[in-house]
């Protein structure tokens, strides 16, 4: 799973049948690369989330027939940009 930040929602009216009416969000990684993920939770822009990739992304939507390769799995309670960008060393045990 990756740690990503929600940028904004994405509206696609004309879409593949097996995407159904799943909400989509634009997410970015710490480098600023943008990707699109299915959002089964309901995230706000700015939320730090964990995203699930590969075939597990399809299961994470609740229906394995949904055609996605990236799904939001949870909203991280406490996270900040510095830790994301690796400016802080590993946390002491």
């Amino acid at each position, binding site marked *: *799973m*990756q*740690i990503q930040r929600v940028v904004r929602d994405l509206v696609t009216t004309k879409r593949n049948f097996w995407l159904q009416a799943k909400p989509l969000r634009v997410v970015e990684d*710490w480098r600023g690369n943008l990707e699109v993920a299915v959002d*089964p*939770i309901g995230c706000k822009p700015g939320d730090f989330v*964990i995203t*699930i*990739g*590969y*075939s*597990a*992304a399809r*299961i*994470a939507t*609740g229906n*394995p027939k949904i055609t996605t390769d990236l*799904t*939001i*799995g*949870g*909203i*991280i*309670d*406490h996270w900040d940009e510095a830790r*994301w960008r*690796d400016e802080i060393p*590993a*946390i*002491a*045990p």
Partner: protein
Amino acid sequence: MKIFQVEGTLVATARIGGLENRRLLVVKERGGSKQVAVDPVGCKPGDWVIAVGSSAAKDAAGHKDYPSDLTIVGIIDYWDDASPEGRK
């Protein structure tokens, strides 16, 4: 399988039901970026671990419908990251 070092636990209260109440850890690949892994083993921060990815991660997390793409499968007993072969 890839080698990671455990950085700490990750708290995500709002999560999809399929993730259950499993422990999630922030792990860092050797010389690489941070990722999040499911931890069915019980690791401490600082531990060097091996983790499986892709579809093997689903089975490793317990059952084949578990939505994980990275699951820790073992803690490495001896690992010295400073030595060139990576072992003592």
